């Protein structure tokens, strides 16, 4: 071999040995190692703090003999709830403020709040932390000049009366004085008793119900589906993405499964994991709330207009495992909940999700179609007719409000009426059930 060839070969061998040494030194990750180490804790967003998880179902403001209702998303709603939530968080020792007497004659009701689901109180919660554990179903604020009292309707116990600290009393009185009602916030009170409708029909009202007064005008909305990062979503459900297989359905829907859990993307998101990985344990109400919020945040996030509307243990028969919960959220547009095939429903336990349906929409644009809503009496009459056709003779009204209903990428205004324990949805103008909904 010539000296020149030897030199070249030696140079190449030295170069190769450097390359191989580098590979060995800095490590060479094999495809298998990548697959095995595929787990990375991924989520859409950090869980919301408890203080931001629950909003009142309704806030009613009273003044000049009238009742006004402010709805989620309304600046007045945020103002009043911000102040009241702050007050409940700041009152560390509610025992100091218990008012031993009855409310003074001159005190007037100025604010009323309803919570559904209930607001947790006590050491685990952020509200009235020094109080024993409880769940707040409603709260009323009464005032006499700058003095304010709070009536707490705590679930399964007698109402508690608190004389609020002077600085909070003054702040709430100030907010109440500054409140300028809008025309669409006016409500009409349906007092307990018998409400006569035309043609002899009558409806019983057992507790005061406030319904939107007059003939409000509501915008019809055009919606678009929420867009989620599919890969990120998959990683939040499946620990090892490499073991997930894809099934493309004929209608364009996509199913992902690892054989134990499955997720379908099509008309929203459906997830199911029927086999529990751990034995469920009973959670306190606050812990169940926090778990629901964490799971929603992790698996898709909690959009600003999404409100938790119910949280309760799953119906348990003797054989079903304990510690399973069900939570439901609705999207709110212009202060009204979006009913129909939309929202979020999940069944879960402390160890994770069992089932999850998420079908959320965002506002695309306002159609410009302003819908003059039919009077509540007409709507109630139409609802009564539906039940009367089924042979019902006695009618008890439990709830009545306006809402949106999702149909064909549109949100149309509807009346939501609960009569005799049944929910009825009627288009706000035609007063007939919307397409796709059956009474």
């Amino acid at each position, binding site marked *: 071999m010539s*000296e020149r060839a*030897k*030199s070249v*070969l*030696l140079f190449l*061998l*030295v170069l*190769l*040995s450097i390359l*191989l*040494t580098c*590979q*060995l030194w800095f490590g*060479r990750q094999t*495809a*298998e190692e990548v*697959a095995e180490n595929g787990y990375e804790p991924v989520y859409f967003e950090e869980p919301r703090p408890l203080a931001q998880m629950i909003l009142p179902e309704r806030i009613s403001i009273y003044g000049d003999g009238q009742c006004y209702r402010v709805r989620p998303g309304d600046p007045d709603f945020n103002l009043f709830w911000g102040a009241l939530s702050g007050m409940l968080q700041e009152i560390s020792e509610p025992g100091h403020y218990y008012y031993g007497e009855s409310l003074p004659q001159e005190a007037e009701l100025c604010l009323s709040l309803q919570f559904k689901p209930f607001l947790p109180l006590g050491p685990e919660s952020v509200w009235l932390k020094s109080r024993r554990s409880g769940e707040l179903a409603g709260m009323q604020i009464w005032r006499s000049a700058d003095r304010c009292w709070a009536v707490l309707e705590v679930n399964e116990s007698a109402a508690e009366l608190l004389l609020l600290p002077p600085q909070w009393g003054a702040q709430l009185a100030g907010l109440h004085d500054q409140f300028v009602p809008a025309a669409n916030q006016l409500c009409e009170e349906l007092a307990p008793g018998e409400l006569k409708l035309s043609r002899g029909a009558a409806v019983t009202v057992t507790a005061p119900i406030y319904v939107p007064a007059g003939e409000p005008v509501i915008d019809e909305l055009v919606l678009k589906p929420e867009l989620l990062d599919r890969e990120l979503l998959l990683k939040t459900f499946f620990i090892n993405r*490499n*073991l997930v*297989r*894809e*099934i*493309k*359905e*004929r209608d364009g829907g996509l*199913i992902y*499964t*690892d*054989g*134990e*859990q*499955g997720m*379908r993307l099509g008309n929203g998101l459906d997830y*199911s*994991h*029927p086999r529990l990985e751990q034995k469920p344990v009973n959670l306190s109400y606050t812990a169940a709330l926090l778990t629901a919020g964490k799971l929603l945040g992790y698996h898709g996030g909690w959009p600003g207009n999404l409100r938790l509307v119910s949280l309760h243990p799953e119906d348990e028969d003797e054989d079903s495992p304990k510690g399973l919960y069900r939570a439901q959220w609705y999207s709110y547009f212009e202060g009204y909940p979006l009913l129909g095939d939309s929202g979020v429903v999940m069944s879960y336990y402390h160890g994770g999700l069992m089932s999850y349906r998420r079908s959320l929409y965002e506002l695309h644009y306002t159609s410009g179609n302003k819908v003059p809503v039919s009077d509540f009496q007409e709507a109630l009459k139409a609802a009564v007719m539906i039940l009367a056709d089924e042979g019902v003779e006695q009618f008890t009204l439990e709830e009545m409000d306006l809402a949106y209903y999702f149909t064909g990428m549109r949100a149309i205004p509807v009346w939501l009426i609960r009569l005799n324990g049944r929910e009825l949805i009627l288009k706000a103008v035609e007063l007939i059930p919307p397409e796709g909904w059956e009474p």
Partner: protein
Amino acid sequence: MNLSRAKTILIYAFLGLNLFLCFQLFGEELLNPLRVRVSRNEWRYVEEQLANNGYILETKVDRSVRKSAFLTVSPSATVKETVRKHFNIPATFTTGPGEVHLYMGREAQLRVYPGGLLRVDLTPGFPLLQERAVADETVLVSLTERYLQENGLALAEIRFDHLVRSGKKTVLHYVQIFEGMPLFSGYLKAILENNTLMAVEIYLLEPETPLEEREMEVIPAARALLRLTELLGPSAPPRRIVKADLGFYSREYDAEKWEMPPVWRFLFDNGESCFINAFTGNLEPETSN
């Protein structure tokens, strides 16, 4: 020292060093095909566990390290036309319950199910042997295959798998083969009654060659067998496992396209199969659809 001699020594030294480095880096992969994943002792333990749980292994099991990937498949649409032409079945059909398309011909009826399954009912059946003749498996298989060949149903991508007898009925099971691996979800079933071929069921899939970079090591057959005893529990009387193969399987979907996992298929002597996902060790099909 002579410079030329020094160069030669250095060349040998670096050659040796590079070989050593290559072995350190790639040795495992180079030796992989020869590697046996389950040692003799481990295998003895598996056999013991099987025996304790009432399972008798009557087949050889692949003990080497195997790799595989998900296999993307879609229902095959080509067989229908072949069948229709061979049996002179008109193209017109009626739709029956469950969206089944029914094609009526003189020699055969063809049913096409929405998922892609075809069933050809022969009118009348085709006698392979005399009604009361007793034939062993090989004879029945060879006669059936001759019939399939003569009628354009001898599909290149299928292979005889097993035969199940139940009273007067005999079913010959063929599985689809893709690149040497069985696709247990793709099959042909020849249904015989009293040695007469009555019907043929065909469900074939169109697989796409998986990408090599998606390949992962599968669990060894020994672990799959242990999983089988865990998942099915002890068996009394003992059950005989007559085949153990690595292939692909998923349940049938009425879908456009889907991915199938590699599975270890254990065939019992009564014709029942148990599919263990070769990535997760879970029983297939178990899906949350």
